[in-house]
Each structure stands twice: as C-alpha cells, then as structure tokens.
C-alpha cells in the first residue's frame, strides 16, 4: 500500500482545452491523470451519434486528446482514468488501441461497462424532477446510471494503463484510485466523504485553479491564457494538498477552492454520490504555500441503496433568430420588431421568448432597468415539436430586413434539436458493471 498518490485533472468538461493535460502529464509527476468529459446531456447526444453509426458515441475529442497524451502517459508511467467512453465505451477503448497501434505503442485498456440501462426501462418510472412517468416526456433516447468507484476498482485491479468508462459519478473517478492504492475500507463513510470532497474540488479542472473564479476588478488571476489545471497529493489518512504545475497560469487559494467546493451542491451536508452521502459543511481549507492548499474535514454517511439514472428524451426543436439595431431609438425599434414577430407567430409555439441582447437578455427587465445601450440585438426563440416551425422563427426575423422597422442589420437564424434530460432512481442491485480488457 502506498502512503501518498498524486492525481491530476486535465479536463473538466467535454470541450475543455487540450494542452493542460499534456503539461500535467509531462511536468506534474502524476500517478493518475483524470479527464472528466461528460455533462448531463453529453451522453444523450453521444447516444444519438451511436444510433447513426455503431462505431461512434464516444467523446468527440477522444482522438485528439489521446494522440498527444498516449506517448506521454507511457513515458511518465501515468495511469489514465476517463469517462470519455460516453455512450460507447467499448468503441472508445478500441479507438485508443487503434491510435496506440498506429504509434507502435503496446498498451492495455480496461473498459468499464454496465451504466447503459436503457433496455431495462418500462417508461412507467417516475422522474425525480416532476414525479411524472418517463413515457409522458416523449420519445426516450438514452438511460445511463451513475456508476461509482466500486465499478472502477476491478479495472484498476488489472494491469491496464488506461481505464475508460461511460457514465460514472465525477468524484468517483478520483475516489477509485484512492481506495485502490490505500486499501480504504469501502464502508468507512468518513474516508469516502473526504475522498469525494477531493474529487469534487478537482473534477472541473480550471474552476479550482482560478479560471472560472476570475474577475479582473475584484479577483484578478495571473496569466489566464496559460491557465494550469490542478493536481492533488492525497495521503493515506485522507489529507489532501491541492496545487498546480509551477510556471502555469492561474491561482490555487482558499477562495478559489471554496467557490468550487459548493459548486452545483444542493445540500452541503448531504451530497449524494454512488459511493457515499458526503458532508462538505465541515471542510477546512488552509493555504500552506503559494498556489498550494491543504484540505481536511470531509465526512460522510453510508452510500444510498439507489443509483441515479439520467434519461434522455426528444424534447422537440428550438428555433432562434437575431437582428441588431443601433443609435437613436435602438431599443424602441428592437421592441417594435419584437412585438411584430410576437403578434405574427408566437401562438404557434409551446414556449416563446423575446430577448433584447445588450439590455435584458440574461436576467429580464427588472434587473436591467437602468441600462442604456447604444445598440440592441433582438433575439427571438421558440420551442416546438415541428422542425419547420423552428425554422420559421429565424425566417420571420430575417424578413424584418425589408418589412421593418428601420435599420435592422446582421440577421442570423439557427435551429437546434432539443434533447431533454430527466432523472430516475433505480435500485443498485439491478445494475451490474463489468470490465472488458483490450490490448494493442
């Protein structure tokens, strides 16, 4: 058993920058690199790609990330844990093997399976959001259970250097190597709670190194164009020291960590994961050096008997149209244009929205009442089950060019297919994970 391990987080969402993970692997002296690339809806979108082509459905940046990373992971003997498998972890694993073969690299990939429970759905399950049966939401397209650290452990017990998963709770990607390397008892809720705190602090990468924290007036952060991503030294007793590679931009401080600690947390005393119900409320964060903090005091209660399942459904279409007005009476003309479109087509949509960008598009009229902009961009959005009606929104906005009011310019139109996500709870005994080993 080890006394200390170092885990880096090189990506905090699917579209994150590529080079921080390369820098972490090359200069961070890591035991493990985690790439967290799966938001709630990402997997439903990936499921659609898989339906169109069974060899797709893994993360769209997987190839680009692995091309650069693979040689560095080998050179520095760093193990990678990533949920880039998305809706098709096996195909993602095979793609990594293919990249390794092309580069003449010998490598093993352990694929964690079992999160896809779509075939088990009846449609009668009640959602956590609305307490309504799933089937009432529309055509269902995906169902993925949040697996926990227990699903990753068998993969870590193999000699695979790369572990790729589908849907796994984000902190579990970090907790699994702690349990493995320190031999933590999976019934020790306080240790798992502390490990979950550490995972939660790291999982959004640049959000703890000052990136999403920054405000040039009240919270200035140096060299954000070269923002470093975080790593953590975890000790056997759960103590953690979080830092970043020296020479990279950004900042790690008590303040950056506090903002991240409560990020997306509904109840700080009861943070549900598949591993533990963690208590974040007594966490102590201390600055021990420049860009280095110590984190203690995460606690927990035993894990829940159910797992959360994210279910994707077809939610229709969103149509958007935009057009700009400037100078004298810009807002009045934009409002006239908005009224014209509203009178002409709003009755055709389930939901309809008129925004004045530059004035009230983000937070409505009340909070924006004192603004007085030189230019206004009108934005119209409508939700509908029919694609042609979604297209009509942008067409109507574009037609303002000649039909007025005066001086409208820069019209743009856009149509987006909406994939909604709702959640259900499912007994964990009905969800079994497996590991498949691939080799180049």
């Amino acid at each position, binding site marked *: 058993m080890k006394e200390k391990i170092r885990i880096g987080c090189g990506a905090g969402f699917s579209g994150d920058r590529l080079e921080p993970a390369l820098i972490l692997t090359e200069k961070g002296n890591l035991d493990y690199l985690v790439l967290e690339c799966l938001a*709630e*809806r990402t997997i*439903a979108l990936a499921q659609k790609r898989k339906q169109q082509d069974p060899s797709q459905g893994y993360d769209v940046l997987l190839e680009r990330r692995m091309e650069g990373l693979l040689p560095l992971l080998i050179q520095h003997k760093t193990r990678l844990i990533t949920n880039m498998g998305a809706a098709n972890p096996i195909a993602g694993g095979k793609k990594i093997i293919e990249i390794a073969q092309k580069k003449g690299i010998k490598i093993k990939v352990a694929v964690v399976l079992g999160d896809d429970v779509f075939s088990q759905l009846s449609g009668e399950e009640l959602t956590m*959001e609305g307490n309504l049966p799933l089937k009432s939401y529309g055509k269902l397209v995906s169902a993925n259970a949040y697996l926990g650290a227990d699903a990753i452990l068998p993969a870590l017990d193999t000699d695979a250097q790369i572990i790729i998963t589908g849907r796994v709770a984000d902190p579990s990607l970090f907790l699994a190597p702690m349990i493995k390397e320190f031999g933590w008892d999976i019934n020790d809720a306080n240790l798992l709670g502390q490990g979950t705190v550490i995972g939660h602090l790291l999982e959004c990468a640049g959000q703890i190194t000052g990136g*999403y*924290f920054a*405000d040039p007036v*009240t*919270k200035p952060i140096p060299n954000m164009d070269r923002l470093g991503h975080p790593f953590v030294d975890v000790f056997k007793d759960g103590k953690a020291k979080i830092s970043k590679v020296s020479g990279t931009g950004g900042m790690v401080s008590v*303040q950056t960590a*506090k*903002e*991240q*600690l*409560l*990020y*997306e*947390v*509904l*109840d*700080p*005393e009861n943070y549900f994961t598949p591993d533990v119900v963690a208590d974040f*409320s*007594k*966490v*102590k*964060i201390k600055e021990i050096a420049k860009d280095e903090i110590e984190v203690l*005091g995460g606690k927990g209660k035993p894990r829940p008997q159910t797992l959360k399942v994210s279910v994707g459904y077809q*939610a229709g279409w*969103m149509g958007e149209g935009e057009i700009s007005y400037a100078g004298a009476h810009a807002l009045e003309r934009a409002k006239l244009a908005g009224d014209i479109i509203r009178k002409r087509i709003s009755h055709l949509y389930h*939901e*309809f*929205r008129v*925004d004045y*960008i530059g004035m009230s*598009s*983000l*937070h*409505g*009229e*009340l*909070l924006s009442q004192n603004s007085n902009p030189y230019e206004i961009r009108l*934005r119209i*959005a*409508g*939700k509908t089950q029919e694609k042609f009606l979604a297209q009509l929104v942008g067409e109507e906005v574009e037609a303002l060019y000649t039909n007025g009011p005066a001086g409208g310019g820069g019209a743009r139109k856009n149509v987006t297919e*909406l*994939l*909604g*996500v*709702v*959640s259900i709870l499912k007994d964990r005994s009905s969800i079994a994970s497996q590991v498949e080993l691939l080799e180049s």
Partner: protein
Amino acid sequence: MKRKLAEIAHSRAGDKGNTLVLSLFPFDKKDFDTLVDQVTAEKVKIHFSEQIKGEITRHILPELQGLLFTCENALSTGVTTSLALDSHGKSLSFALLELEVETNN
C-alpha cells in the same frame, strides 16, 4: 452605507436540472455576519422575482464562512430544454452580487 454585494463578496452559480445553486462568500471574514443578517432567502427571492419561481433554501456554513442558496424552479426548465440565452444560469452569480446591503464602513 449602502453597498453592492459585489464590493464585499464573491459568488458562483451552479445548476442541477431546473434548480439554481448560488454560493456567497465575503472577501473579508468580518463581513460574514452582514451577509447572514441581510442576505436572507426572502431578500434573494424578491431580487430574483423574474427568475426564481420556486422555493429558496439558505444554508449557513460557519466553518466555510459562506452561504449557499438552493433555488427551485429557477432556470426556465433547465439547461437541456431552456430557451434562455444563458441556459445554465451561469451569469446569475453576478446578478446576485447586484443586491445591496447596508454596511458600517
């Protein structure tokens, strides 16, 4: 004197479905009590009367010197299906910081 929260505190917004989560921390811990006394759930609900349609729960975290507001039915159905330009509600942290409080200094 009246001051905007932005001068004495920082905040981060997060989302889970249609629920908005706003954290609030003072820059200087001497202002923590001001936040506890004045930034109540009721005041936040009035401030966000156009956005937050559901209940607001305020968590006071003395160890972290921070507050957390869990706001239900706040993101016009949530990130996956909202028509809003900022469907996550990420910019709402800075809307919270527009709220004014009374301070002694």
